[in-house]
């Protein structure tokens, strides 16, 4: 009894994983598991708000697919940024090589000009 009373006051519940939430939404969980999810939701404002929103989706089975698509897009976005960074790195190196080449060329030209002037 004392432990159960503690449950009312406890505001720390383990996070519910996305799969369990999806099963809850599709009403595929047994009553005891449902209670656990609901207890966790009652002390987790983020998840509780999310559940309210998810219950408004017309086709609950589509939610898993939407999440998959969003995750795929996220991966692409993250990868794009990496590619862009790598391209920038390459560009930076090209400029460096070009600068070194121009520098060496200038030294050679100066040497030749001075050499000719001394000869004359």
């Amino acid at each position: 009894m004392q432990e159960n009373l503690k449950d009312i006051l406890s505001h720390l519940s383990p996070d519910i994983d996305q799969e369990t939430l999806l099963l809850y939404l599709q009403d595929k969980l047994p009553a005891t598991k449902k209670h656990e999810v609901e207890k966790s939701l009652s002390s987790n404002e983020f998840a509780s708000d999310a559940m309210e929103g998810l219950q408004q989706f017309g086709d609950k089975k589509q939610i898993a697919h939407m999440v998959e698509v969003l995750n795929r897009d996220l991966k692409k976005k993250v990868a794009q940024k990496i590619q862009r960074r790598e391209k920038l790195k390459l560009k930076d190196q090209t400029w460096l090589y070009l600068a070194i080449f121009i520098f060496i060329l200038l030294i050679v030209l100066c040497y030749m000009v001075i050499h000719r002037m001394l000869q004359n």
Partner: protein
Amino acid sequence: MKADNYNDTTDRELLDNFYASHQNEWLGILLQRYTLLLLGVCMKYLKNEEDAKDSVQQIYLKVIQELHKYKVDYFKSWLYMVAKNHCLMKLRDKNNMLPVELTEKLTAAPAEETDWQALVQNDQALDHMEESLKELNVEQKQCVTLFYLEKKSYQEISEETGYTLMQVKSYIQNGKRNLKTMIEKKMKLK
């Protein structure tokens, strides 16, 4: 990097890895954990499936940008605040309403959580619990008892009491909040 490989890694560790390397891949793994919740929160506020999906993508971008600028300690509560702010701003743009922007300290632990935990660790609070439970109104007392003490689901409580699911949820939430207030009052009096 595969998200599945990091199932045992905490949000904090993923965030620390990101701050150490500044590689967005870490944020990708971290954000994937919250896609479903973000979609739900956006749907709750925007009430439109397409808007909700678009908003989740915009929130991803915002989070990636912001985390390069600031150090966030409590990622989950911060992300929730970013998501809510984003939706409120969208609603404002739609309805020409003034924004009700939420602000939260990035470094502070969620205040309410620590508040509840302090109470649960206090033996005196538990002593007042039974007494306070009796003082709740009939509906709240019934729902709180069935939910927390008899461990029934909302559905089962709804079937047993005849209340709708929304009513059950609301009686439990309000009952819990009222219990907390009553217990705190009693503790101050003693």
